[in-house]
């Protein structure tokens, strides 16, 4: 018997993002659709940044996770429209990012506070960071540098 899509969403919520393993690919908002087409399970995935090298790893991780659950016939579709936005990050994902030391994205264009000491005295070092989706900031209070998940 083939599993229902709700159950599959739950399985995918256990697949970690390869770069930021505290959040799942579902938290990240890149899994856009899960549907059965006959006996084939179709999973639509959207890239975060168009050149992000994690995209192909994510597709492989999703496929592996589903195969481990006994789903053999899988089609991963890359969907670029509508384009991914940080608005699709889940609330759970945002909270976990901060616990992990990455300030979650904010519409104002910068982090609300330092993820380490929670001071609001923060300054931008560079709009580009360790992965395409992050910028580098620093706390003026505890002086620690930190990643900010930038809005797109």
């Amino acid at each position, binding site marked *: 018997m083939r599993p229902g899509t709700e159950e599959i969403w739950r399985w995918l919520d256990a697949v970690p993002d390869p770069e930021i393993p505290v959040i799942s690919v579902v938290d990240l908002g890149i899994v856009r659709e899960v549907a059965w087409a006959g006996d084939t399970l179709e999973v639509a995935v959207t890239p975060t940044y*168009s050149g992000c090298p994690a995209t192909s790893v994510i597709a492989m991780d999703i496929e592996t996770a589903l195969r481990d659950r006994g789903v053999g016939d899988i089609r991963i579709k890359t969907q670029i429209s509508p384009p991914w936005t940080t608005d699709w990050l889940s609330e759970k994902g945002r909270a976990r990012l901060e616990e992990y030391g990455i300030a979650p994205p904010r519409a104002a264009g910068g982090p609300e506070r330092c993820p380490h000491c929670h001071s609001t005295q923060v300054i931008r070092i560079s709009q580009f960071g360790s992965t395409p989706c992050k910028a580098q900031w620093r706390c003026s209070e505890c002086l620690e540098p930190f990643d900010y998940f930038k809005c797109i």
Partner: protein
Amino acid sequence: MEARDGQLFEFLCRMGDNTLVLGHRVSEWCGHAPVLEEDIALANTALDLIGQTQMWLGLAAEVEGEGRSANDLAFLRDVWDFRNLLLVEQPNGDFGQTIMRQFLFDAWHLLMLKGLTESTEPRVAEIATKAVKEVQYHVERSADTVIGLGDGTSESHARMQKALDLLWPYVGEMFVADALDSALAEAGIAPDPASLRAEYDAHLETVMGEATLTLPESGFAQKGGKSGAQHSEHLGHMLAQMQWLQRAYPGASW
């Protein structure tokens, strides 16, 4: 290919070759930039551009329908088949020259992509809608850096002015419409390049003003890149390095 597909293919190669050639050029800085933050920023910019290349050339290959892939187009075509602007194939020079080239391109790229989000060809509009978000970050940074270096020390100011003077003749090509551009504008697939000039000039005036740099007065434009008629000698050298592996070991894969 039908005539419309033929035109679309040419146009997609223009977009994809711009991002491919500039993406490769910028990637040449990886591990060599003056400071770590700039190294990371350049590598990220290059990565975005290569990602956009995959979308543009991927669609080009699909439209062409000859069974070629984005990789085939990137690695198995020779200089005369490339349709990128002459600006993006110019060598990196010093860091200032690289940043000046980036800003002159980014400012055009943003306007072009914004126009393309309204394209009557939905697949083009989809790619542009994705890419425009990334390019907004590129232009913000390259403009800031041009201002920082132009209005910096006497040494950095002199180098930025020299870079602007050197690259200025390559700006015009972005805005001169040829027969293909006119046909695409007519069909609503892409904006008429000439229509982007006023906003571009206004942006440049603001940024160069803040950077205390002087825009050259000459309107002379080097042409031949996007038509493929005559690339500069630099492109062949770049391709020799970029395509070497696929040429030496046909079909090699990871």
